């Protein structure tokens, strides 16, 4: 199979004709440009494409896709995104957290803005293709180094094959960045497909806060196949927030891998405000002794949105802690799926692992599916998990109604409080306030 022979690449029952038709590199040589990626990476992408084609589509009986609406996985009809029309307008719209150390803006997988003036010396915030060329060793070591284990191996391969750019964050040993780094990923164009990527590598004792923002430029149907890899060295601290505001017609995959070394602390929050179909996979590897991973998610679901989240808390070392808290509020005919697994490997004694999903049912048409799982192969562990589904608290509602708050607003206030308990887990108070304000706006409060 040659690089240019894309039109011959056909695998039966692979319904991604639109994707198949796109050239391997947007700036590929046959278009008269030179690829910004090193040759070895282009070769790597070809292999990823072959893998993508060889892997079967998820089937109804596949446990990682239980309860999922497989029809949403038909990616035919999506085309590779072409350059956006008005970069300046998107840059102007990229207004998020006020006090930033750096900002990087992508539109349809191309960098349109980069401001790194507030970064301490030695910190890298680069487009991935530049990192692959200039910091090959670092890139090779950390870029998609672990397999997607929660069902989306095929889609991770597609991401790798079709990747055009992305953010590379490297904070060297001992460097602490006080303000957050904000990375914007815009998609524009009917049926446009983008492949956002954020790779964060923290050296020993380093500390950083990174906000990924995923936004649709217009109310259009689009595909985002996003990957983020968080790599934490010993004693490092990372706060990561993904704020997803795709259009209500969007299909999106958000695939995460987090690796934490000795005494490192990762706190990752995913907020899902948009999308028609959202598949999230969060895979935490507690690799070092005393490592910690806090996994949070806030999911206001409405309309016919389906939010399908699969998580893995994999404990390899003793005395590590993982703590997962997912809150779903389901309105209209929305649907959520949560499948989480805590696995305590044989050597991981004195593990503390917690997992909690709460579903707040706001409508008779909504559906919540929960599969909280445990696999414990070591002893002397403390593991608990819980899943609850319930409705608005009558007493709380009554209290507010009695004080003249209209019913709809009272319900929204309760939902706000329900999500607030997840936000409180973030350590950065400024970030809490900022995201709280965003929640207020989304809930019309």
């Amino acid at each position, binding site marked *: 199979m040659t690089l240019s022979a894309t039109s011959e690449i056909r695998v039966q029952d692979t319904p991604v004709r639109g994707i198949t038709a796109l050239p391997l590199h947007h700036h590929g040589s046959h278009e008269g440009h030179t690829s910004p990626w090193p040759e070895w990476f282009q070769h790597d992408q070809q292999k990823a494409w072959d893998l993508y084609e060889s892997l079967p589509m998820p089937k109804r009986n596949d446990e990682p896709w239980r309860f999922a609406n497989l029809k949403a996985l038909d990616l035919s009809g999506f085309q590779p995104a072409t350059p956006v029309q008005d970069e300046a307008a998107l840059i102007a719209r990229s207004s998020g957290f006020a006090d930033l150390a750096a900002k990087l803006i992508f539109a349809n997988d191309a960098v349109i803005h980069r401001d790194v003036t507030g970064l301490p010396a030695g910190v890298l915030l680069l487009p991935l293709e530049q990192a692959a060329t200039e910091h090959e060793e670092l890139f090779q070591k950390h870029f998609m180094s672990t397999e997607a284990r929660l069902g989306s191996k095929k889609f991770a391969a597609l991401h790798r094959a079709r990747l055009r750019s992305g953010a590379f964050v490297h904070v060297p040993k001992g460097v602490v960045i006080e303000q957050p780094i904000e990375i914007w990923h815009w998609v524009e164009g009917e049926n446009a497909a983008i492949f956002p990527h954020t790779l964060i590598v923290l050296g020993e004792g380093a500390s950083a806060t990174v906000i990924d923002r995923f936004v649709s430029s217009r109310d259009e149907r689009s595909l985002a196949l996003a990957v983020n890899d968080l790599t934490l060295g010993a004693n490092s601290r990372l706060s990561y927030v993904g704020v997803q505001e795709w259009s209500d017609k969007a299909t999106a995959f958000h695939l995460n891998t987090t690796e934490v070394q000795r005494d490192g602390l990762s706190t990752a929050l995913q907020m899902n405000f948009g999308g028609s179909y959202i598949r999230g996979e969060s895979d935490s590897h507690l690799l070092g002794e005393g490592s910690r991973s806090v996994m949070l998610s806030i999911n206001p679901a409405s309309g016919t949105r389906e939010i399908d989240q699969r998580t893995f808390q994999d404990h390899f070392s003793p005395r590590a802690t993982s703590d997962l808290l997912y809150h779903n509020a389901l309105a209209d005919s929305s649907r959520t799926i949560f499948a989480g697994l805590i696995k305590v490997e044989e050597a991981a004694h004195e593990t503390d692992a917690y997992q909690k999903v709460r579903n707040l049912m706001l409508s008779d048409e909504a559906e919540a*599916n929960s599969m909280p799982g445990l696999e414990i192969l070591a002893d002397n562990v403390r593991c608990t998990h819980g899943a609850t*589904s319930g409705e608005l608290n009558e007493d709380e509602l009554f209290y507010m109604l009695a004080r003249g708050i209209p019913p709809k607003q009272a319900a929204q206030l309760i939902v706000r409080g329900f999500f607030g308990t997840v936000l409180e887990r973030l350590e950065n108070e400024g970030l809490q306030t900022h995201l709280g304000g965003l929640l207020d706006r989304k809930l019309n409060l």
Partner: protein
Amino acid sequence: MSTETKPDIDIDRSVGDFRYEMEYAYDAGVGLSEATIDYISDVKDDPDWVRAFRKEGYRKFLEKPMPTNWATKDLENIVFENIRYYLSQGQVPKRSWDDVPDDIKKTFERLGIPEQERKFLSGVEAQFDSEAAYSNIKAAVGEQGVIFVGSTEGLKEHPEIFKKWFGKVIPSGDNKFSALNSAVFSGGSFIYVPPGVKVKHPLQAYFRINAQNFGQFERTLIIADEGAELTYMEGCTAPKFETATLHSAVVELVAMKGAKIQYITVQNWSSNVFNLVTKRGLAHEDAEIKWIDCNIGSRLTMKYPGVVMKGKGARGEVVSIALSGDGQHQDTGAKMIHAADNTTSNIISKSISLGTGRSTYRGMVHVPKHLKGCKNNTECDALLINTNSRTDTYPAISVRGQGNAVQHEASVSQISSEQIFYMQQRGLSEAAAMSLAVNGFVNDLVQQFPMEYSVELKRLIDLEMEGSVG
């Protein structure tokens, strides 16, 4: 509990581990084909609809894949061609203990069945390989119109009740093993309790596998008519053979309006039995079905008793204790299907993993659209004794709409060293302290079993705990 009671325990352990050389009058041979099914149907003189039902089951069995996409790969070690699907001495159960052939009698006497019956049980049905060898029901209960017979007798003599519910709670194609059972079922109980009759004492059945490479496929159907109440207990044993044995039962319960059924199982198959059982109850309005399930034996058990709450105000409950010793895998759980308003279900599961044992909880709770006032509570607690023990929890909970409350909680823990230390300070050996702690862990559930079962359970736990410390 402590070492002083050890002699008793040793006797208990050997209770089921013996076998007699039998000359079987009917033997369907090894392997499964349409001919095997015809042979069984001929021997049993099945009505045509039963023969058709078996063939349909066989077809579905062949169609269905092994559920290894979610279940253990150990299932692949079942060699269906090597199994004997039907063995019996004579297909008519005896009514008096004296009529039972001596060798079968010896087996059951060793298990203590008539003795138990004399003590207090309302009726006993004892199944030896494929067929019921002995069945009796106390006159007092019979006079109330209670029917307690084997499934073969039930389908022939009470077709009007039998046919109405048979295969309705668990369709033959429910899973591969229910399909297999539908094809080759033999034995098991048929019970009908008329409206308003409350059976005071438990009805009881014993299942025993005596032959090597034998598969036991009993089929039980219990119907409690309006306002009736019944408790049913089953126990199972098998001797240890060189090769694996298969037990694949189907148990269907029907509780009509306001009826109550309690079904108690103490499973102590020998450690080479694949125990793959489908159990489900259908609860009509205000009815209550409770499964009390204890799994101690077998190599692999896969069993998820379920309740379909079809009528308003129906209630389902599963109380489950699993003990997985070296080389054992207890894959147990519960299924709660809410299909009417104001239905409530409760699942309490406790498992203990010892040595290389593995305990798995698998649960399903389903609340479909437009129901109100449904409640489910699920609690799973797992105890790990050794460093190489394993436990898993895989619940699946689906809730549609508001107005329902569902909660699931699970925890995994160890026996704290402080607890053990405290008891050792007071003169208990480490093993005795461990046993005491484990018994404490399951004590609240063990209390729900009838007296002699709870005593037996405690002994079995002590026994399994032996040598597991350190």
